[in-house]
């Protein structure tokens, strides 16, 4: 009997179902946030929609108990897989005091949680790349086995920090994996007005590391290349650059109207490859996602999201004077 794709990758049925569940939770949470935004309850949303497969596939290939991650603003799938809860994400969406990312100081999507080794992120794009390289340098210096994993958009790969960070990692053969989530747009600017190379992965050669372009709608394919990259890293063979090709299914953010710069048809077309649907099909074909499991999953997720929303909505804001806290270490 031929092995199924996930079995080829040594993934159990439970694991792939868990992957699917994480993708679905990310998607549903994201959808809820849009509803909350459109009903005036939260000021801002920035979406993972269309990138869940890449995010979750990658995260599952990492050591989620030891590796460090430097996610970018769309990476809800990554941080969920690394232990951030729906409740915590909702606290962030509502900017409440108990938001573990920033205590309500940063916009949603600015992830950070030390206990889950999620480096704190900012808004200026690509600054996280050298940070992840620095963590990988620490791993090498301290002779630890973990790797660091950093993501960014394809537009952001044009920033100097991408170049400087990857070259540093290449010279010192550091255990860092960079994944560019190429969703074809940087706000309104399409790939070909943004990036001069055919593929983002083409840039790897300039940093002495392998570069792989992978279908970002296929969580198993992403899982595989990230796994390989992680193995290389822990073998001391240095960094890798992965390009996961996806598509941004929503507008750039809740402040953006994408109808001014892209055709509706293009978006419709892309939705045919929506990983949340195609991966579900794969799991159904393989009788992992049966109707009853699906029902249970959906119920569970709805419940999680409802509870998270209620909890976060009713949670307290930070006190006004908390503005003054934590500029420097307080002893």
């Amino acid at each position: 009997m031929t092995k199924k794709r996930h079995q080829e990758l040594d993934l159990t049925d439970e694991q792939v179902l868990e992957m699917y569940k994480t993708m679905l939770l990310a998607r549903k949470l994201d959808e809820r946030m849009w509803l909350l935004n459109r009903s005036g309850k939260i000021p801002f949303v920035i979406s993972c929609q269309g990138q869940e497969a890449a995010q979750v596939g990658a995260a599952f290939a990492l050591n989620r108990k030891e590796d460090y991650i430097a996610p970018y603003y769309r990476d809800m799938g990554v941080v969920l897989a690394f232990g951030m809860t729906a409740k915590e994400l909702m606290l962030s969406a509502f900017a409440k005091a108990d938001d573990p990312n920033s205590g309500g100081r940063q916009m949603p999507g600015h992830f950070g949680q030390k206990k889950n080794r999620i480096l704190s992120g900012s808004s200026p794009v690509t600054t996280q790349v050298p940070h992840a390289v620095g963590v990988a340098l620490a791993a090498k210096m301290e002779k630890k086995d973990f790797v660091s994993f950093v993501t960014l958009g394809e537009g952001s790969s044009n920033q100097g920090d991408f170049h400087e960070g990857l070259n540093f990692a290449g010279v010192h053969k550091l255990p860092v994996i960079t994944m560019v989530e190429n969703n074809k747009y940087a706000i309104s600017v399409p790939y070909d007005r943004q990036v001069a190379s055919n593929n983002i992965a083409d840039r790897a050669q300039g940093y002495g590391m392998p570069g792989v372009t992978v279908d970002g709608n296929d969580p198993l394919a992403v899982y595989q290349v990230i796994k390989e990259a992680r193995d290389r890293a822990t073998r001391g063979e240095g960094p890798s650059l992965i390009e996961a090709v996806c598509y941004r299914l929503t507008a750039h953010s809740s402040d953006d109207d994408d109808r001014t710069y892209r055709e509706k048809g293009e978006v419709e077309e892309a939705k045919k490859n929506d990983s949340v649907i195609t991966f579900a099909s794969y799991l159904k074909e393989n009788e992992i996602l049966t109707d009853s499991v699906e029902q249970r999953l959906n119920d569970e997720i709805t419940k999680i999201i409802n509870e998270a929303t209620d909890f976060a909505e009713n949670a307290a804001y930070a006190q006004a004077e908390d503005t003054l806290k934590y500029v420097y270490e307080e002893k």
Partner: protein
Amino acid sequence: MPVMSYIQAVTTALREEMQRDKKVFILGEDVGKKGGVFRATDGLYETFGEARVLDTPLAESAIAGVGIGAAMYGMRPVAEMQFADFIMPAVNQIISEAAKMRYRSNNDWSVPMTIRAPYGGGVHGALYHSQSVEAIFANQPGLKIVMPSTPYDVKGLLKAAIRDNDPVLFFEHKRAYRLLKGEVPEDDYVLPIGKADVKREGEDITVITYGLCVHFALQAAEKLAEDGINAHILDLRTIYPLDQEAIIEAAKKTGKVLLITEDNKEGSIIGEVAAIIAEHCLFDLDAPINRLAGPDVPSMPYAPTMEKYFMMNPDKVEKAMRDLAEY
């Protein structure tokens, strides 16, 4: 005279200057098809085409650096930084290159470039979409920094910036974009860069400020006037290099000075304003030089409680003005 919003004044100035001079062009992120994330370049792509309204890759140092090169050739680039907070990657190009070009080449080369950027808070933008960044640049000879407060000033000063033969940073308050409206003449006027402007005459206290805070001060002044306190309000308009003469004159006029900025206090540009006054007219003062500013924390938080605590507003300004008047 037509009434327009602050951002419409930006767009109008850009359009008029592009019509007037073929060397003027725009470059930045999402300035083309989308017309800018705030829509400051709305419609320009349609009128002037892709070549003169250029969507650049997401790379601020390149936006500034490519602009500098084009300006050295003789073009008049108007670069947009999507948010002032994202000017940081371009600091080397701005400070090491644009600011020093004329000087280092002994007047051989110059950089007639304008860099526009929306700054300021009160828009739920959190730490990185709320900052006042002018202090970073306000000690770099060779640069000029303009921060207009009204649609009228926006049009006249942006046109002046584009025609200026040296690099100008032009910071626009993003909350002012749609909040502020005012009369703007249709004709082709320019206002002088480097000159402050008295926005209100008064005898009791002097308020010196710039940008959105000018409006908070004007609003507060109306309230104070009801109680017979007359505030003199000087709008700096150009915050580097400062208009020393106007500052000294305004300070002397009432002898009681309040300086206001939305930026954090320590190291903000109103420190320099205070120093100028303390250097030149100390003995004309009847009260310590008061400063009203944001708290010394990195930037404005997202949560409404904390954003409000940080952000300047008419109430805070009114209170400070009353306190000074009563001194």
